[in-house]
């Protein structure tokens, strides 16, 4: 009997329990993630194709898609840049109050999103702490897409900082010293040696911040003002439809949102996989 090349799922391990663990994982994922999501698809299927198309291409819905994904992407990009900076400062420098700053980073995680929304609205409104200075410059934050962006930046920040921080901590000083002795400038050392090491974690942080921003509801609705065609986000559209007992319409919008988000995350994950393969060869 010839032994063909068989693909082995199971690899030998000193810890037994592959079957049980794998089975549990699948059931758990199915129950917690797949079942509710497929329910959305099932409900959507009650619509005819034409009804579905009309629902999701309504101008108001399209505008909300643009806002939600646009603002989320932009917020994730901004968070990636400044989150990296923040993580870098927290790891590399010693300054009084560092622990407090470090704890502050987690605050957007812990705060109820509605509280965050109300606070942001109060601060950025025309007579608010920051708003009163922006108003004369002609910058209106509250009840505009800019307000949506501010809220999404706020809630997404910890994701980038917390994923990148441990990776920066792991970079040995010797690596930078080696680059310096080889004649690299500070910028070259960062760009060619440090950045490639951080990149996979940075992409993870970006994905998390983006995913969180797309689904964010509580903090946004207060500051957005929710004007149709201007500052209405997708989750709000879904809620509105639900309140009008348009369940199928709500799930139709949700399904589109789900697919687009899935596509985004898939692409980012591919990028990440590629960069991990290319840039980090862990010992």
């Amino acid at each position, binding site marked *: 009997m010839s032994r063909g090349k068989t693909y082995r799922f199971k690899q030998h391990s000193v810890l037994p329990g592959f079957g049980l663990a794998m089975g549990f994982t699948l059931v758990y994922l199915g129950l917690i993630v797949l079942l509710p999501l497929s329910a959305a698809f099932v409900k959507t299927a009650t619509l005819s194709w034409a009804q579905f198309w009309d629902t999701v291409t309504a101008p108001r819905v399209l505008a909300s898609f643009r806002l939600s994904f646009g603002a989320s992407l932009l917020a994730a990009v901004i968070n990636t840049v400044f989150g990296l900076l923040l993580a870098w400062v927290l790891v590399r420098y010693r300054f009084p109050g560092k622990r407090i700053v470090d704890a502050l980073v987690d605050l957007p995680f812990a705060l109820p999103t509605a509280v965050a929304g109300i606070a942001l609205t109060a601060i950025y409104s025309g007579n608010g702490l920051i708003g009163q200075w922006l108003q004369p410059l002609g910058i209106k934050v509250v009840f505009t897409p800019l307000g949506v962006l501010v809220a999404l930046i706020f809630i997404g920040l910890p994701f980038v900082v917390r994923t990148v921080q441990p990776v920066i901590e792991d970079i040995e000083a010797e690596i930078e010293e*080696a*680059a310096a*002795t*080889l*004649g690299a*400038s500070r910028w070259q050392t960062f760009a060619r040696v440090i950045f490639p090491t951080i990149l996979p974690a940075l992409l993870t942080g970006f994905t998390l911040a983006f995913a969180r921003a797309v689904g964010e509801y509580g903090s946004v609705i207060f500051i957005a003002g929710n004007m149709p065609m201007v500052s209405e986000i997708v989750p709000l559209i879904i809620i509105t439809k639900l309140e009008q007992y348009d369940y199928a319409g709500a799930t139709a919008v949700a399904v589109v949102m789900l697919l687009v988000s899935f596509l985004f995350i898939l692409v980012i994950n591919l990028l990440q996989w590629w960069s991990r393969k290319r840039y*980090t060869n*862990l*010992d």
Partner: protein
Amino acid sequence: MSIEVRNIRKSFDEFKAVDNVSLDVPTGELVALLGPSGSGKTTLLRIIAGLEQADSGEVLFHGEDATSAHVSERKVGFVFQHYALFRHMTVFENVAFGLRVRPRRVRPSEEKIREKVHELLQLVQLDWLAGHYPHQLSGGQRQRIALARALAVEPKVLLLDEPFGALDAKVRKELRAWLRRLHDEVHVTSVFVTHDQEEALEVSDRIVVMNQGRVEQIGSPEEVYSRPATPFVFGFLGNVNVFHGRTHDGWLQLGDARFEVPDGTDARDGAALAYVRPHEIEIERFSPGAKGITAQLQRALVVGATARLELEREDNAQIIEAELPEHRFRQLALKAGETLILRPRELRVFHDHAAS
């Protein structure tokens, strides 16, 4: 290019890591900084490289003051104990790094870079690993790549910080001999830090022995080993027996035995320490009236060509180590428990500051 170090001092908080050290390394020499951990040797090396700033003092390269020059301008090659290879780059890219980061004006063409990298990889005999990543290499291979990377920028000075410290004994010995050959080939002024006396003695042209942030002695391996300038150097390089005694009028009294103090030693009258290497002890069977230190043979161990004897002094029970050539040991046919007479062939006497 020569290196001059002038009155370097460096403290970390209260700890004096380098305490007023001056040092000359002539062009093309391979110098070892040897000392126990905490002796300041690595700090001194890092100050020479510019990775650490001295509190005071100067570093001169070829007579030019480099004290305030940034690391990247000093043209030093630095090899780290733990290799510090860029793990997201292939071996080839690691070695090419120093060439690629040059300003566009002086950056070699891609073709030149490839040529140079392969040349260096051939020099370290690892050309076949060009496409591998650091994590695929053994420790010894990684260190050789690190060396090739450091040499790629054609450094004026090569600095190695415990380059073989993380490797196992056998690889270490091989690399040691290899480094010496490499140095004879490329002749770049080199300083390497080690705490391994054997390594220092075997590889270097000159040894700088450091202790507690100070230089104890500078000299050729032969000089440092056979004519140690201080008790510390004596104890640090090779095994040594220390005898406590007294000097008076050019004679050293050790218990009942008396020895002439050799010329050229600091032998003020008073308490003294006498240092004798194990292989510089003459041994014979006890006979009444024979002059020397009386001791009893406790254990004898033949290792290769030498016999190591452990002896106990009769008068104060001090343990003395002695070494004999194996054939001489057989000739004498010594047995444990026998009483012997010891006479140092060479001894160095230092004034005992602690006891007087």
